[in-house]
Each structure stands twice: as C-alpha cells, then as structure tokens.
C-alpha cells in the first residue's frame, strides 16, 4: 500500500431488481412492487421503496409480504436484463478504476486511491459515477465514501436511496460506539445474538471486550470484529475475486416425492450453473447435490470427477446419480441445490480406454 489513507467507495444500486422493473414498465412506477418468483414458498428478492413503509423486505416470504401490503404488485425476476444492466454499471466503475470488487449484481467496492480519471477527490468521483449510472441506465445508486471497505459500506447505508455519504474516520468514531452490533456489516443475527449473550450490544461494548476473547469465541473473524469496532479494516479491494464454487438452488412449490421427481428438478439448475461457469471461464471437478427435506434436515452428497466439467448434460447426469432412494426415503424434498467446486480452467478430458478403441 502507498502512503496516506486509501479512498474506498461502496456503490449500491437502489432496490435494483424492482427499479429495473419500474423503469421498464411505467405502470409499476409509484406503486409498491416486489420482485419474486410465483409459488407458495417464494421469497421477496427485492422490494421497491414504495413497498418498504409497509414492512416489506427482501428475503421475506412472499405470503407475508402480501399480508403486510395487500396492494403489492408481484413481478417475476428477469435476470438476463439485470445482468445486462449490471454489466453497464460495471463499465462505469471500470472507467474510473481497475480495482472493482463486485459483491453481487447490484453492489461493488471500488478503490479510487489512484483513479484513472476524475481527479483526486473521491467524493467528486462518487458523484460522477452516480450521474453516469443514471445517464446510462436510468437508475439511481447510493454511494458511501471512506478510507476502507467497512466504513464505505457503513456510509452508503446511512443515506438511502439516491444518496452520497462521506464518512471520515473521526466522524465514524462516535457513530460506531453507539451502533448496535447487529448493524455492523459482517455481524449477522446469529453472531449478534451470541455477542448479546456475552453482554455485548454496541460497538462501544465491542471495544471494551478484549480482542483475545472475541478471537476465542469466533476464531479469526473475531479479530476482525475487534478491528471494525474501531472502524479499522485493512482488507484490500479485490478485483475479480475467483469464486470458490458456483451453485444454484431452487425451493419448490410442492414437495417433490421420489427419486425421479427430484432428478427432474436438476436440468434448470445445471443450466444456470453452466452459464455462470462458462461466463467465468471455469469448470469444476466436484459436483455437490444439496437437498432440504420436509423435516427441515439438509443433506448433501458430493462426487469428485477425474476431470473438470461444466456442461449441463454432465452436471445433470452426475447430480442425478447422487439422488438415491436411500438418501430421500419417504421424505418430501423442499429445496434442490447443485453446486460445482474444485474450480479451475476447463481442460480436455483424458481419452478413455474403451471409448478410444471403439472410435478407431
């Protein structure tokens, strides 16, 4: 790292999927919109800002969202469109810096300590990025500006939607002391509950806890908690972080019963996985099947293949072999997942002995 503080941005598209839908269909504008698949067990992927006052949140079961907001307009997701828009947004990012770490289709960290253009002011760059995103996509984005990833993310969360917040370490200091632990990025509900059990409810409490205790309770991530309580975070912005695995899973509307029904759910998952592997230029040797059963238990089965694969047919066939009557028994299957790990560049499969001779 060079001298002086870094300049880090966190840019988050506002209610991304819902905003794209409202942009493309004028009838949805100004109305509470939820993007979700149809079906009984569906969850809200994104809620528009009009739906949020009703208490509709992402990851909420759709039926509950409809209870809270009877006028909610439910729209099916169109991922190909979101990906296209997201690619446009990333182009804007990359015109300012090669150091872009996408977190998802609608969120990214940028290191603009040494920007390609836009001058030395990170605030100016954030303004420029927001304006260019709006011009290119017609959508609004919220940006947080600070000296590290943790504070930049905290900053963008302070003023949503369509906001720009600069959070300097001196300002962050007081804010963090009173901030509830559950509002720290990286501390989920389970961790927050565990911290509460130790009497730790705020950033101030965290600061008073010896880091060694946090490390003992949570391992290495505990040390990270001790640092972020002071607003410290030296994690670099990692462009193109290589994925460890690529997977896809689907909750089904009606419990699947029997091996054949579960196998029939695999091809669309395999198609999605192939698409994402192909886009990343990867293939993998380990195929993992995950099933959630009607007693809420989760079972996984994996197989390591002699060479990396990624095509839909092979993935489907491989995962289908892992679905056995023994595995599911009499139980219904609620969720089917297919993941490929052991990722690397695709390679030519070795010639087979019997195949090779047959083809001669």
């Amino acid at each position, binding site marked *: 790292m060079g001298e002086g503080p870094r300049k880090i941005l966190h840019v988050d598209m506002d209610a991304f999927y819902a905003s794209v839908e409202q942009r493309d269909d004028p009838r949805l504008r100004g109305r509470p919109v939820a993007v979700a698949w149809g079906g009984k067990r569906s969850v809200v992927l994104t809620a528009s800002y009009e739906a949020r006052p009703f208490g509709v949140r992402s990851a909420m079961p759709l039926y509950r969202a409809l209870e809270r907001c009877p006028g909610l307009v439910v729209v099916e997701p169109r991922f190909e469109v979101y990906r296209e828009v997201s690619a446009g947004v990333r182009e804007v990012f990359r015109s300012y810096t090669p150091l872009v770490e996408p977190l998802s289709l609608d969120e990214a960290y940028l290191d603009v300590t040494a920007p390609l253009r836009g001058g030395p002011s990170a605030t100016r760059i954030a303004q420029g990025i927001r304006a260019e995103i709006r011009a290119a996509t017609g959508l609004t984005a919220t940006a947080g500006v600070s000296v590290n990833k943790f504070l930049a993310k905290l900053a963008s969360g302070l003023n949503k939607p369509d906001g720009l917040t600069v959070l300097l370490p001196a300002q962050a200091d007081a804010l963090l002391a009173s901030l509830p632990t559950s509002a720290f990025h990286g501390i989920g509900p389970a961790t927050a509950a565990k911290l509460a059990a130790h009497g730790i409810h705020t950033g101030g409490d965290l600061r008073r806890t010896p880091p060694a205790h946090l490390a003992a309770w949570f391992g290495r991530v505990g040390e990270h908690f001790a640092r972020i309580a002071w607003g410290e975070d030296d994690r670099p912005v990692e462009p193109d972080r290589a994925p460890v695995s690529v997977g896809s899973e689907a909750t089904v509307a009606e419990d699947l019963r029997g091996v054949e029904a579960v196998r029939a759910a695999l091809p669309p998952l395999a198609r999605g996985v192939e698409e994402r592997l192909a886009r990343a230029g990867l293939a993998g040797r380990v195929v993992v099947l995950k099933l959630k059963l009607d007693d809420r238990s989760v079972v996984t089965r994996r197989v*390591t293949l002699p060479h990396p694969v990624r095509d839909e047919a092979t993935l489907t066939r491989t995962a289908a*072999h892992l679905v056995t009557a023994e595995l599911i028994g009499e139980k219904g299957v609620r969720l089917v997942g297919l993941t490929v790990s052991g990722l690397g560049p695709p390679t030519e499969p*070795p*010639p087979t*002995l019997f195949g090779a001779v047959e083809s001669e």
Partner: protein
Amino acid sequence: MRAHVTKKILSEALGLLERVIPSRSSNPLLTSLKVEASAEGLTLSGTNLEIDLSCFVPAEVQDPRPLVVPAHLFAQIVRNLAGELVELELAGHELAVRAGGSDFKLQIGDFEAYPPLSFPNHADVSLDAAELSRALGSVRYAASNEAFQAVFRGIKLEHRAESARVVASDGYRVALRDFPASGAGRSLIIPARSADELIRVLRDGEARFTYGEGMLSVTTERVRMNLKLLDGEFPDYERVIPKDIRLQVTLPATALKEAVGRVAVLADKNANNRVEFLVSEGKLRLAAEGDYGRAQDTLDVVQGGAEPAMSLAFNARHVLDALGPIEGEAELLFSGSTSPAIFRASGGGGYMAVMVTLRV
C-alpha cells in the same frame, strides 16, 4: 456365559469386524456385534448389508450363550485393556469385560431382533488365499471409487482351465493378474470396497468359495464372509490390449518409478499430470511441463522392436500406479503414440497394466 480369551486374538478379530460394522445406521441394530459361544470359542459376526463377516476366536468357554453388544464400544474397550488375557462374563443384561485391574460392564442388545446371518457349510471351489489376496491387491488401484459405471467400481474374477484372473478398470486403464487355480469356478464381479476387506482377511491356506444368488461366500480358517456381488457387464478389456508391439523397453521398475515421480512434480495437474516418454537409441527421456516450469530425466534402457523411436504421453499418476506391483525389471510395450500401452514385469508373473496414452 463366561469366557477367557487372549486379548491379541480378540483385538484382531474385532479390528476386522470394526471395519465392516457401521458406526451409525438408520437401523441401530446393525451397529452391534453378535457373539455366539461354543465350547471351542467365540464366533463374532456383523454386517453392513454388503458384507457379512464372521470371525472365530478360540477361547475357553463355560455355559455358552449368545449375545449382541455395541460393536465399536466393545472393540474400543478391548483395545484399551491392559494385560494379555480378557475375561468376558454375561450377567443379566450386562457383559462384564475384565482384564488386569479393569472391569467394564457393557449393556447388551436384543439378540432375538438381530438379523440372522447364515454362512454356507459347503464349498464349490477352493483357491490359494495368499495368491488371491496378492492378485486382488495388485489390481485394486485401477478400480474406481467414484465412477458411475457400476462395473468400474468392482474387480472381475474370471476362472479359466488352470488359472484364475482378476481384472479392474476405471475406463482409463486396466490392471489384471493371472494366478494358478483349479476347479470349475464362476466369473463374477466383487465390489472393490468389499475386495479391500477380503484382502485384509485373507492370509495363508485355502479360500473356499461358495456361490449364491448374487452373492459369493468366502471361508478361510478363521473367517467367513458373504459378499454381495455387482451386477452388470464388464467391458471387453481384452480388445484394448495391444497385440502389435512395435517398440519394447526394459529397465528397472524402481528407477522408472523414481524418475517419473521426480518429473511429475512439475507436471500440469490441469492437463492430466501429463508426462512425455521419448524412446530412442537405448534411452528413455521423460519430460513434464506445467505452469511453473519444466523437467527432464533420462534413463538407460534395453530397447527392442521394429520401431527405432517413439514418443508417447501418459498420466504420471497412472504410470506410478501401474508400476506399483512390479518388482525387478519392468517391461513397457508400445504399439504406437495413440494406442494403449502395456506395463508388466519382465519375465512374466501374471501381472499386466494397460493404459491410455494422452494426445501428443
């Protein structure tokens, strides 16, 4: 019942059974071990529904009565005992296990509920146990633990007029070994994982075979086993054994193993661990190349055959596996750069490996 038994012998038998009896099962009874007593000793048996195994342990027994006990706990207790002699005594619902100053009371299970295990009393054919064990052990590596073609997870046993042959393949290589045998035996496919257990129990003396419906029973002096067989058609492996040998190389197996092991350090893991073999003018030159560099090694060989030189490529792992069972001089038989190659011991011995060549 009261029995006195040598700790070493009891431990050995429990060690074999422990590998077969599951430590967890949806049917908890299967985690138990059956003990049947007679005036001569104790017969310990268990099953995982693929393999039934029964071991005889000579003991001094009074008032013989059968019982079942939790297998893994019993084995653990016996293993940890001090002293050389173990005393077992059944009293009520507890089995006392005593040795030295130790006294354990282990709760027994429901003997009546345990599935009956029956082993045949006659033999259809008899093989030399040591030969069979050695033959299975030398081809085991070629069988697949993962392949979806069920027959590749098995070892084929063929009976011929004056010999028997074991064959294993994973589709990329074939390993086979002939050994002397007489009698009218049948051809069958033993699951490789069951063969692992068979190899472990076979020592000296005879292995008596009894054929059942989808089942092979093997009886030795100490042990009786029922093995569930694999269904299916083993591929016609004889077809892939090259007949037209154009170049032949002889060299010490150890020298080749070491040299391949050396150059394989730099072989490309993503390209099937490719190692190139270049034979000419009494030299074998090995070469490997990966992302981090390249390696070469040259060995003196005795060269024969019509072709003056040949260049081939193999998976280094396959080469090392194939050389494993070869002691002394190894003989490599090549019929062309794209044809499968044969590795065997110079001067016979019944073992042969056939493997694919990678594309040059």
